C-alpha cells in the first residue's frame, strides 16, 4: 500500500441515534486508533474490540467498538478502522476532532469511494455509476451554494476571502512590482490593519459556531450555584416534572442530571449540577468536579443564588444568566438590573428567565447574521485564523518578512478554497494590477 494520508468522516447520518459509526481510512488509521484509545491492544483484522475513547486533555468521552479492516481487504483498499460510538453528535464530533489532531483530516465528499476505485476495489460499472453520482452531488452542492450566497455563511466567507486577496495583493505588490522601499512601511501597516480586521471577522463567524450547532445539535444550559440555592427545584419547574430529587438538605444533588426541552424552537439540554462548596466528602467532591465540567461545556450557565447562598462567579466561563431564587422567603430585596428574581417553588418569575434565554439566543443570531454549523466549516476557519495570526506576527516583529507573511496569507486563502473553489495566482495578480499603479 502506498503511503496515503488518513481521512476520517462520520459514515452514519448526522444527529442523535443509538449508534454512530466513524470511519478512518489510510496509512495512519491504526496508529490513530491506538493513540485515541491510549491502549497497546493490537486490533485484529475484522474483529471488534471495546475500548475507551479519549479526547482533549485525555478526557474519556465514551466507550466504543473498534473494528479493524486490514488493507487491501477493506472498502477503500487501505487500512480502515471503524469506530462505533454512542449516537450523539457531541461525542462523534469530539472523536473526529481528535482524529484530526492526531494526523488525520476530514474526508472530502465521496473520497472513500474515490479511494476504493483508485485502489481497484470497485469495477467499471460501479465506477460509472459513482461518476454520475458525484457530479449530481456537486451540481446539488453548487445549487446549494448559490442559494447560500445571499447574506449567509457563504456570503460572509466570500467577503473574508475577498479581503484576504486584497491584503495579499498589498504584499505581492511589494514583492512583484515595487522595486523600491518608499511605500514599504506604509504598505506593511495597511496590511496589518487589514489582517486585524479580517481576524475579527473570522472570530465573529467562529463564535457563531455554537449557535449553528445549537440549531442542529441543540443547546446546553447548566444550572449552577452553591448547595441549596434551589437548582433542582428550578430544573423541575422548567421541565415541568420532578426530574431531580429536591430537599432542604444541602447537597442533595451529587451527580449531574440532564433533561431535554425545547426553548425558542431549539432543542435544549438542561443540566442540574451538584452545589459548589468547600467539602471533604469524596462523593461530593467528585460531584463538584463534574459540575465544573458541565459548566465548561454548557452554552449558557444559569448562576443561581438565594437569601441563604452567595452567587458563584462564572463570568469568565460562558454566557451567564444571574438568577436570585427564593424571593418568596424574604421581603424587601433590593433588585439589581442584571439579575432575574424568581421563586422556583412558587413558580414566579420563570417567564422572565425564559425570556432572557430567548433573548440571548436571538442576540447571537443578529450579531453574527449567519451561523456556521459544520465541523468542516469550523476547521477551515480555525486554520484560516492560525495562518492569519502567524502572518500578523511576521509583519510585526523586528524581523519583518513579507514573503513569509504572503505565504501565510496564501495558506489562509486556500483554507477557504473548499467553500469557494480554487483561488488562482491570476486572481491575486488581477487585484495587484487593478489596485496599484504598476510599471516604472
Amino acid at each position, binding site marked *: 500500500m502506498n503511503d496515503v494520508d488518513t481521512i476520517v468522516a462520520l459514515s452514519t447520518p448526522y444527529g442523535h441515534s443509538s449508534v454512530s459509526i466513524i470511519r478512518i481510512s489510510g496509512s495512519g488509521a491504526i496508529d490513530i486508533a491506538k493513540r485515541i484509545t491510549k491502549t497497546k491492544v493490537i486490533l485484529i483484522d475484522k474483529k471488534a474490540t471495546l475500548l475507551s475513547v479519549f479526547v482533549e486533555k485525555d478526557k474519556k468521552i465514551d466507550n466504543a467498538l473498534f473494528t479493524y479492516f486490514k488493507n487491501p481487504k477493506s472498502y477503500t483498499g487501505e487500512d480502515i478502522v471503524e469506530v462505533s460510538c454512542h449516537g450523539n453528535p457531541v461525542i462523534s464530533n469530539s472523536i473526529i476532532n481528535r482524529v484530526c489532531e492526531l494526523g488525520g483530516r476530514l474526508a472530502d465528499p465521496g473520497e472513500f469511494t474515490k479511494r476504493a476505485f483508485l485502489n481497484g476495489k470497485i469495477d*467499471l460499472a460501479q*465506477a460509472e455509476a459513482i461518476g454520475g453520482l458525484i457530479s449530481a452531488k456537486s451540481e446539488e452542492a453548487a445549487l446549494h451554494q448559490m442559494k447560500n450566497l445571499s447574506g449567509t455563511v457563504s456570503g460572509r466567507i466570500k467577503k473574508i476571502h475577498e479581503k484576504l486577496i486584497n491584503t495579499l495583493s498589498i504584499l505581492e505588490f511589494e514583492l512583484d512590482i515595487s522595486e523600491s522601499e518608499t511605500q*514599504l512601511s506604509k504598505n506593511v501597516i495597511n496590511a496589518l490593519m487589514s489582517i486585524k480586521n479580517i481576524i475579527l471577522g473570522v472570530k465573529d463567524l467562529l463564535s457563531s459556531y455554537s449557535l449553528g450547532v445549537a440549531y442542529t445539535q441543540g443547546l446546553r444550559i447548566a444550572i449552577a450555584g452553591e448547595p441549596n440555592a434551589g437548582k433542582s427545584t428550578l430544573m423541575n419547574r422548567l421541565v415541568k416534572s420532578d426530574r431531580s430529587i429536591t430537599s432542604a438538605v444541602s447537597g442533595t444533588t451529587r451527580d449531574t442530571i440532564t433533561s431535554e426541552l425545547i426553548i425558542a424552537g431549539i432543542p435544549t439540554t438542561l443540566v442540574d449540577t451538584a452545589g459548589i462548596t468547600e467539602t471533604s466528602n469524596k462523593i461530593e467532591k467528585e460531584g463538584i468536579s463534574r459540575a465544573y465540567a458541565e459548566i465548561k461545556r454548557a452554552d449558557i450557565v444559569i448562576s443561581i443564588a438565594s437569601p441563604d447562598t452567595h452567587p458563584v462567579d462564572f463570568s469568565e466561563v460562558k454566557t451567564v444568566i444571574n438568577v436570585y431564587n427564593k424571593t418568596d422567603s424574604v421581603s424587601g430585596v433590593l433588585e439589581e438590573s442584571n439579575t432575574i428574581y424568581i421563586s422556583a417553588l412558587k413558580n414566579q418569575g420563570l417567564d422572565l428567565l425564559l425570556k432572557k434565554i430567548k433573548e440571548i439566543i436571538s442576540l447571537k443570531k443578529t450579531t453574527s447574521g449567519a451561523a456556521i454549523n459544520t465541523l468542516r466549516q469550523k476547521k477551515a476557519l480555525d486554520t484560516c485564523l492560525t495562518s492569519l495570526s502567524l502572518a500578523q506576527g511576521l509583519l510585526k516583529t523586528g524581523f519583518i518578512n513579507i*514573503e*513569509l507573511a504572503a*505565504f501565510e496569507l496564501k495558506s489562509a486563502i486556500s483554507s477557504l478554497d473548499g467553500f469557494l473553489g480554487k483561488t488562482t495566482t491570476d486572481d491575486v*495578480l488581477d487585484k495587484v494590477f487593478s489596485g496599484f499603479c504598476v510599471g*516604472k
Partner: protein
Amino acid sequence: MKRSNFWDVVVVGGGHAGVEAALISSFKGCTVLLITMDIKALGRMSCNPAIGGLAKGQMVREIDVLGGKMASFADLSGIQFKTLNKSKGRAVWSPRAQVDKRAYEKEVSLSMENSPVSVFKGEVVSVSIEKSCISGVVLRSGEEIKAHSVIVTSGTFLSGIIHIGERKILAGRMGEERSEGLTESLCSLGFRSGRLKTGTPPRLDKKSIDWSKTSLELGDKDPVPFSYFTGDFKPRNVPCHSINTNVKAHEIIQENNHLSPMFSGDIGGMGPRYCPSIEDKVHRFIDRDSHGLFLEPEWENSDQIYLNGFSTSLPEKIQIKALKEIPGFGEVSFFRPGYAIEYDFFPPSQLKNTLETKDVGGLFFAGQMNGTSGYEEAAAQGLISGINAVSYVREEEPLVLDRSTSYIGVMIDDLVTKDTLEPYRMFTSRAEYRLMLRISNTCDRLKEFSSNFSLLGETRLEVLNQVMVQKSLFLNSLKTSIKPEEVSTVLKIKHSLPARELIKRPEFSISDIPWVVSKRVEILPLWLQRDILFDVESEIKYEGYIKRHLKEISRIKSHEETLLPRDYNFSSILGLSKEAIEKFSLVRPETLGQASRISGIKPSDITVLMINLFN
C-alpha cells in the same frame, strides 16, 4: 555561402528565443540553420536596456544552469548591477543589470560566429508538412528549406503594426520590416492566432536634458552576476537617473488621450496591465500628481536615453509637449518617439509542455509569439524548445520542468494551460513554491537536468559540482554544537546547541557561527561562496516552510504523473460538467495535474476524469 538542403533544426527568427534555441541545439550536435530578416539584429534588445529584475533575474540564472547563454551575455555587457527586494524576503532576491545594448548584441554575434550555427538572411512565409509532421519552411523567394524540426520565434514581427497617435506604420520594430504570410500559413493548418499589443517609451537625446534636475540612481557596491560561470566579478557601475512627472504634464496627457489609439479603440489587441502606458497611468490614478520616470543609457556613453516609465502611443508632438512641462526636460528632443506595436500571437494552449505544437510533429513555437513579453521569458522558451527539438530529432525523452523545479517550469505550464489574454510576464507570485525557487539554489534545482540532457561542457559542469561540494561543506559544519562562549556576547545563548538550531532563530545569522566561513572551496569566486553561504542560511531558516511546500508537492505528485491519452474524447465522459468538457477540449491537458489547474475546473471534475481514466 553554399547551404545544405537538409537541417536537423531550422530556427525562424534571431531574437532572444531564436538565439538560445539555435545555440543549444547546435551545442548538442545538431545541424542548425537560423533564418532572420536582419543578420545585424541578432539578440537585439528592442525595449529597455536591462536584463533580469523581479522574477526575471531568477529565470536568467535558470537559463544559465540549463546551458543557455543569456546570463553570460548580460554579465559581459552589463554596466550596472543591483539585487532587488533585499529587504522583503530572501527567496525573492532578484538581480538586475543595466546593459549596454550594443555590447550585448556584439556578445551574441560573437557567440553565434564561434558556434557551428549557420545564419541566413531571409523571410519565412510558410511551413511545409508531411504526414502531420514538419518537413521544412518556404522563403519569400519561393525557395524551400528542408528540416527535421522547425522552431518559430517570430517575436512581434508577424503582421506587426506600429501606432504613434493616428499614424500607423507596418513594421516588426521601428525601422525594421514586418513579416507577412506566416500567420496565414499556420492558420490554414488549423492553428488559432490572436492579436496582442505592447509599447515602448521615447528615446531622448542626452544633450537636450538638464541633468542637474535629475537624481542619481546607482547599482550595488558588491554586485552579484547572473552566471555561475562568471569568475571574479568587478563590473562597472554606470549611473542611471530619475525624474518625476508633474500635474502640468498630466493635464496635457489627459486632454489628448483621445488621440492615443489605445483609448480611441484603434488597437484591438490586449496590452500588458503590468506595463501600462503613461496615458493609462494618468487616467486611472487621477489623484496622483506625479509618476516616477527613469533615465537609462542605452549603451555606455550613449547619446540615446531610454525613458523608462513613459511608454506611450500618443502623437509625437503631444509626447514632447507633455515632457517639456517637466523641469529638466524644457528643451527635450527625441531620437525616436514612444510607440505601441500590435502583432500576431498563437495562444499557447496549442502547445505541449515541451513547446512542440500538439498537432504538427517537430514544429515548435517559442518567445513572444506565444503571448509572452520580456527578453528573459523569450530566451527561456527558446532554450527549452531547442533542447526538445533535439530530443524530437533523436527520438529521445523531452525536457519538461515541473512547477516545483523552476520559474521556467511555472511559465511553460502556465502558458500551455491558461491561454493568456495579455502578454505574459513572469512574477514571483505565479510560483506556488516560491520559497523553494531561490536564485541562490538554482544549481541544486536544475543541475540534474543539465547533466542528464548534456547541456553543459565538462568545465562548466565541474563548477556546478563544486557549488554542491561547497554547500555540503557548509551544511556539515553546522551539525557541530556551538558553546555559549563561542557566540558574540551581544547575542548570548545559555546552553550549547547544534549550530544549525541557532541559525533558525531570527536574531542569529550564519555568520555568527565562527568556524563556517573557513570551510571554503577556494576555487570558487568569492561572490559565489557568499551566495552559497546565504542559501544554506535560507534553507535552515525556512526549513518549516519548505517542508510545507514539499508536503503539498508530494500530495499532488500522482496527479502530475498521470498522463491523459492524446486526443482523449472528453465529451464521452459520463458525469463531466458541460463547462469542464469545453475547457478540457480546448486546452487538451496532457496530465491530470495540468487538467486540475485549468481555470474554473472543480475538484469534482477531476474525480470524474480520474474514474473514467482508469477504466
